[in-house]
């Protein structure tokens, strides 16, 4: 393909979603039924185009098209497109997942008041995301970064009648903006030192400190966008948006923009900065997994799971294995989108059922669900495949990519103790992942039906099943490599070849993951006395913190020791469960009091300053004049005598 044709097709791919957004805006309300179909069609086109393009351009040398954007002093800033394997992967993933979400939304959003607005912002978001992927310099990337953030803000607040939705949108926006300050500072540092924003070359010489500074500032931005500690609480609130949006934005694409940025600017990172990246990533991973274990909201479990997986991705980049991160990004995009759409399917059909039977309860609370595997077999089947990929069971894509992450983390840690601590954190995260996945699966699909028994539940319509099936197919091992135990397939070999293999880890996980899964499953199935396991129970849970602080510790200790005496394994799990809950509570507390507190405090501080600045304007003109003249005289005295 000629360079010009290639360029045009790339631009076309990026513009198709924008066209979809425009179409959704201009179609008159009387013909609104066209909107979903037209948008999906355009996205399908974009998706097919980018797949074809990826196949034809795979492993070709890097291409850059650039044009002068503006001149700043003597140096010029260019704008253009950067095309390499990373770009192609992201291009395909974004368009494909977006297409899936569009398809799913045809059913999910049918009859919504703001349907057209929804599709136009969805299209606009996809366009912005593609622009971000294609951008060949940091400034341009930043532009799309902001646009992506903006469309996310609009989509989170889509149901603006809900106060929670608007508050969540505001929270997401503000946290992201604070983090973006890091991006701006990094831009300025990079500009100041290299005179260019180009992503293909970073000519930092012997300025280690500045380089680290720029890298850390970028990391700050990544931490905001990819919901890393301590900025992650916006992502769980973002679940107020429509579920397909959560699938697209808050699982598969936008949040990985941060990871994508890390991969793009990887050469900028000094060893020191990379260590910080691992620390942030692995802490986020484990805390996210802990939090996921203690949620009862279906979507919030998935949200915290996303946070945890993002932590893994970031940590993987930090260990230097950016190719591995890209691999996991790909597999995660498929299975997490599948999980979210599965959750969406459950929520949708339950809502429909509630509508016809006039029984009302919170369908997102997993304690109200159960036994859905009979009523919704296809959803169940697809959801389980994706869940298996998330848990990392062999034969699913998650196994390979997680294996790759573990291998890279351990090869990074070497014999340094503190590094090994973080490597083990990743292992713990993987174990926790199995537990919360099984827990979620159990509550929703396996346990005997509780409130859902009152409803007549039907499987979702075909149009919503197609994406589920396709995404679950994409969560199987062959996405990574034909050998189900080998992670270095088509992708890794092209991005970052010669990754180290560690057969010990592979075999260990091959054995331990299924075992743990079965154990967890049995645990949930055969727990005999639910009262002793209060943390999984309804009602009891809310008072938990109080009792945990006063009477429970003693009781718990005795129970734990008793258990260990009676049934070894059960006791360990029990103790582990208590530990988890304790940590999860701590996390929730930190989230609520410290992170939110900081946001609040900065707001209050700003308002305090504001009221001082404003107090001079009490409406009396002579006092205005007085203050002005007073300031003038004082500063004259100060300048002349000081």
């Amino acid at each position, binding site marked *: 393909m000629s360079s010009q044709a290639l360029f045009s097709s790339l631009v076309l791919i990026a513009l198709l979603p924008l066209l979809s957004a425009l179409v959704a805006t201009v179609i008159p309300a009387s013909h609104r039924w066209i909107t979903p179909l037209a948008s999906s069609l355009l996205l399908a086109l974009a998706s097919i185009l980018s797949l074809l393009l990826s196949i034809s351009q795979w492993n070709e040398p890097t291409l850059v098209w650039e044009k*002068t*954007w*503006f*001149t*700043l*002093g003597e140096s010029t800033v260019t704008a253009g497109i950067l095309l390499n394997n990373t770009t192609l992967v992201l291009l395909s993933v974004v368009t494909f997942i977006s297409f899936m979400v569009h398809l799913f939304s045809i059913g999910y959003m049918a009859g919504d008041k703001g349907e057209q607005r929804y599709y136009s912002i969805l299209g606009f978001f996809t366009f912005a995301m593609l622009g971000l992927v294609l951008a060949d310099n940091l*400034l341009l990337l*930043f*532009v799309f970064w*902001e*646009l992506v953030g903006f469309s996310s803000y*609009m989509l989170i*607040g889509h149901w*603006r*009648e809900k106060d929670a939705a*608007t508050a969540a*949108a*505001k929270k997401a*926006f*503000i946290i992201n*903006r*604070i983090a973006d*300050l890091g991006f*701006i*500072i990094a*831009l*300025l540092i990079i*500009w*100041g030192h290299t005179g260019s924003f180009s992503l293909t070359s970073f000519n930092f010489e012997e300025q280690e400190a500045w380089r680290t500074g720029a890298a850390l500032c970028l990391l700050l931005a990544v931490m905001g966008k990819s919901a890393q500690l301590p900025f992650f609480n916006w992502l769980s609130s973002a679940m107020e948006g429509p579920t397909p949006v959560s699938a697209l934005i808050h699982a598969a694409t936008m949040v990985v923009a941060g990871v994508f940025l890390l991969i793009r600017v990887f050469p900028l990172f000094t060893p020191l900065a990379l260590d910080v990246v691992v620390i942030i990533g692995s802490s986020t991973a484990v805390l996210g997994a802990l939090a996921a274990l203690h949620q009862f909201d279906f979507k919030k479990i998935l949200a915290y799971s996303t946070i945890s997986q993002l932590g893994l991705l970031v940590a993987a980049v930090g260990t230097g294995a950016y190719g591995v991160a890209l691999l996991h990004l790909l597999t995660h995009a498929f299975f997490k989108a599948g999980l979210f759409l599965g959750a969406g399917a459950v929520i949708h059909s339950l809502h429909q059922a509630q509508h016809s039977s006039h029984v009302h309860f919170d369908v997102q609370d997993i304690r109200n669900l159960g036994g859905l595997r009979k009523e919704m077999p296809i959803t169940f089947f697809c959801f389980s495949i994706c869940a298996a990929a998330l848990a990392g069971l062999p034969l699913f894509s998650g196994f390979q990519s997680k294996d790759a992450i573990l291998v890279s983390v351990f090869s990074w840690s070497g014999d340094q103790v503190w590094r090994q601590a973080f490597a083990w954190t990743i292992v713990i995260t993987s174990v926790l992942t199995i537990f919360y996945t099984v827990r979620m699966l159990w509550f929703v699909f396996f346990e005997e039906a509780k409130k859902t028994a009152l409803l007549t539940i039907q499987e979702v319509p075909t149009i919503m099943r197609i994406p589920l099936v396709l995404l679950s197919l994409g969560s199987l091992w062959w996405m990574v490599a034909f050998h189900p135990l080998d992670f270095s397939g088509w992708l890794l070999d092209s991005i970052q070849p010669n990754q180290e293999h560690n057969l010990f880890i592979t075999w260990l996980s091959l054995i331990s993951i299924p075992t743990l899964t079965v154990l967890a499953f049995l645990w949930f199935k055969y727990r005999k006395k639910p009262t002793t396991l209060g943390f999984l129970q309804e009602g009891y849970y809310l008072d938990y913190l109080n009792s945990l602080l006063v009477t429970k510790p003693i009781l718990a200790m005795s129970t734990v020791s008793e258990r260990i005496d009676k049934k070894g394994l059960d006791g360990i799990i029990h103790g582990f469960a208590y530990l988890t809950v304790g940590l999860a509570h701590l996390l929730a507390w930190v989230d609520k009091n410290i992170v939110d507190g900081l946001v609040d405090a900065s*707001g209050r501080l*700003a*308002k305090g*300053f*504001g*009221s*001082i*600045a*404003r107090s*001079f*304007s009490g*409406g009396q*003109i*002579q006092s*205005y*004049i007085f*203050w*002005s*003249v007073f*300031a*003038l005289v004082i*500063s*004259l005295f100060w*300048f*002349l005598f000081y």
Partner: protein
Amino acid sequence: MLGTNEKLEWIQLSLKYFLPELVLVGAFLILLLSSLVLNKGHQKKSIDWIALLLLMATLMASVISWNQTTANIPLFSGMLTQSTFAVYLKLLFDVAGVLTVLLSWKAYEYRKAEYYALVTCALLGAHVLVMSSNLIMVFLAIELISLPSYLLTAFVFSKKSMEGALKYFLFGSVASAIMLYGMSLLYGITHTFDFTSEVFAKAIYYQQTPFFFISVCLILAGLLFKIASTPMHPWAPDVYEAAPSPIVAFFSVVPKLAGIGILVLFCLAIDLKGNSSIRWYIVLSLIAILTLSIGNFAALLQKNPKRMMAYSSIAQAGILLIGAITLTNQGLQFMLFYATVFLLANYLVFLYIGHFERKSIVDMESYAGIGKSNAASSILLLVGLISLTGLPPTAGFLAKVFVFSSLWNSYEISGQGLYLVVFVVGLLNTVVSLFFYLKIPYQSFLKNGSNTVPSENSWGVNLLGFLLVITLLGLFFLPSGLMGWLNRITFAL
């Protein structure tokens, strides 16, 4: 010393370069006459058209003189200097003038011709001010802007509007009296009013005394009043709240930019090409920091959009000052870029503030839910606010990047720690500004309004808004055209 005949010849020659101002004087007189002739009901509508045509003609004349001007030309016995810098600013003023007419279309019917005449007079003052190279002209031009401005504030003819006018008048008169006193003291030192002349430079070079410092500070106070910059800013919120919206847009752009223009020229003169032993950049930096911080922080608490925009424009003045403090060519060019973007975004925002005001949406809360009923208007307003905040993909972002990058450059070259402080404070303030600029979009898009606002046919407003938005986006994606123009500008006295 020139003889009388040579002086008269000079005057004749000068008139050639004075075309835009002559057109403005003509426009002023025509508008005055039409106020006498056309004051019957149906004829009033023609006034809008007359004013529009006249101001368009001025804009054309300015474009012509932009093409004529390459170097500095002294006019009228050295009272004025025609320079590329001045002509560019004049172009901006004329654009602002045309936009003011468009914003006032079909509104403020009472005494419309007088209203436009006063706008024209203030425009004339702004034109003359940025060309001035003589303190007499500076004083006169400032009064030419100020006195019509006081009167224009009262043109809502309501109780509050009169109060605003009184406050503006009292504050302004005191400020200009202080400035005048400073000028009289400076005359004692230099024995000339021509601040671009050799005599002036020589005199101040040998007398870098506290006396000189005080007199310059007094003059700066008067100029800062025009810019609405700390410490001479307290009038702005009250006046902005009181005045008609198009006039507020005018106030927050034209006198401000004219003030910045003359401030730059005056500072170039007293800076003596960096040979001054008084380091003026310290004074300017402190003013910029305070202006920026006070503007942004006070804006956080405002409930009235016009008041909020008043503090916003104070803060924007701070950023313009940041562009000016280094007094380098690059910094000043970027300052002009910022000024251009600021003008467009500001008029865009006031277009809609005025538009909604006519639907009796006056305070922040009543914007709730407008995003639904007036979707197009709200989105266009949003773009304007985003540009003022300085987020991509609007030209506001690029303009801020330019201004800050030139400051950073100056910091790296000179190593002045103060520049770094300004830089950091500026960046932090950018974050603060986000919180208030997005108040209106937050209300309109994410809140549900209790009152239903009629979505009446407002295609005229939206067309203008759309054009402004296109320009703002265009300047972001293709800034090179404008930068090419700005690169032609030199800042020698």
